[in-house]
């Protein structure tokens, strides 16, 4: 028995897209001392399509694995399509996460959103998927919210 399933372990032990890139077009970071995780996503974007993504994460197995699948899943997607991805999609892709670790996947969703928000602001883009998104929202909110589950 293990805490995480094989797929999570694979993404955690051999994460995809770990590291940084030269001159990213967008960067977004998300995390807080309270949840104990911090994630930074860098994107290369061409014609509103994410052509490359990298992450740097300080966090547990679930945070690292979520970072890995999230960067993998947004690659090749339009910004709008990437914004539609939620932590649920990452969890599904990972084949599930243990209950107390669900919130770590929210981290990835939020970091992606922040990176795209960064890009949209710099380039004056109005994206449907960013409506209502508050980049300065208290980072602990999702944490408490999710822990109630």
């Amino acid at each position, binding site marked *: 028995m293990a805490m995480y399933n094989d797929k999570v372990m694979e993404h955690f032990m051999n994460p995809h897209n*770990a590291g940084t890139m030269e001159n990213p077009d967008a960067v977004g970071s998300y*995390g807080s001392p*309270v949840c104990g995780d911090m*994630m930074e996503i860098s994107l290369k974007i061409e014609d509103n399509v994410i052509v490359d993504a990298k992450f740097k994460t*300080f*966090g*547990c*197995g679930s*945070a690292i694995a979520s970072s890995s699948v999230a960067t993998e899943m947004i690659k090749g997607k339009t910004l709008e399509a990437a914004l539609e991805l939620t932590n649920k999609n990452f969890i599904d892709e990972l084949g599930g996460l243990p209950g107390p670790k669900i919130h770590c996947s929210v981290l990835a969703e939020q970091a992606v959103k922040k990176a795209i928000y960064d890009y949209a602001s710099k380039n004056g883009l109005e994206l449907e998927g960013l409506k209502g998104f508050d980049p300065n929202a208290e980072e602990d909110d999702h944490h408490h919210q999710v822990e109630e589950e």
Partner: protein
Amino acid sequence: MRQVYLDYSATTPVKKEVLDEMLPYFTEKFGNPSSLYGIGLNAKSDLSQARAKVAKLIGADEREIYFTSCGTEADNWAVIGTARAKKSKGNHIITSKIEHHALLHTCEYLEKEGFKVTYLDVDEKGRISLEELENAITDETILISIMFVNNEIGTIQPIKEIGEIAKKHKIWFHTDAVQALGNVPIDVRELGIDMMSMSAHKIYGPKGVGALYVKKGVVIPSFMNGGAQENKRRAGTENMAGIIGFAKAAELAGENLELHRKKISELRDYFAKELTTRLEDVDINGDMEHRHPGNINLTFNYAEGEALLLYMDARGIAASTGSACSSASFTPSHVLRAIGLPLEKVYSSIRFTIGDFTTKEDVDYAIEEIVKIVEKLRGFSAFNKERTW
């Protein structure tokens, strides 16, 4: 793959000599020590020999040892027992911020009943201040409970001095010696200890058995109500095999104490030195002077603790973030917070404990692997020297 267990503070395997002594008590010698016939009376006499062995390890009298089901029970009993016994005298308890949850949660339970608890601060090495302790004492104080050795950072408290203060003020002194037993010399008389918690599974005995030393003259009511076992102070059919195992483990611990201390502290020092020289930005937490001989607690800055543990586990190395009991709850260590570590350092800290079965080869292997793991995790960490929360 090599398996390197470096978490002896979480629990220990049962030594062969210990298990061998236990085995007959499951089968032929299965009598209930309260029974009046042969196998029952034999069990009773074996029980009293076991008590004597545990007593010997700590310089106590056989009649001062009460077997319990674990260290946690001993802690609960000592504190709640004192609260009940002394309620007419007062309702104030002094403890520290770095106690085990068995102690802290018991104090919180009593706070809900109206007891007042002072949680003493500790310095950056994890030691309480004797002056603060003495200042905290009021007319209402009924108990001082300060742990002997901390389970996360291995810091040893000035037990003898605390004992003197307690005695001066005529206050009972309890110490949680679960991590101290078998690792530091203990003489309850010399140290002025009134009650002391112990647990077998930290000294190569079985899980599910512990003891509370209660000094002659100190009287606390039962925590477990029922039959007349343990001189009427702890009900429940005795865990004979467990108790026999505990006693054998205590006997071995007494015989090997100096050798054990020397061996594990040398390996521990080597391990810590290698990691702190071969890796940058590794901090040692706690106090190198007053420390559990097998314990080292390291902060691998910028690398996250759970990730470290899992990568280590994948390479066969077992260690932990803080105490085993809280590792599943993912709450940042209250001990590391109390010695002043910021959260990001808390999240990057690992406790290693060397034990009797650890070899030089084990340690060398662990060092190599840990260096690689830390470098890998730091390689894609969101944090570094320049950037943190």
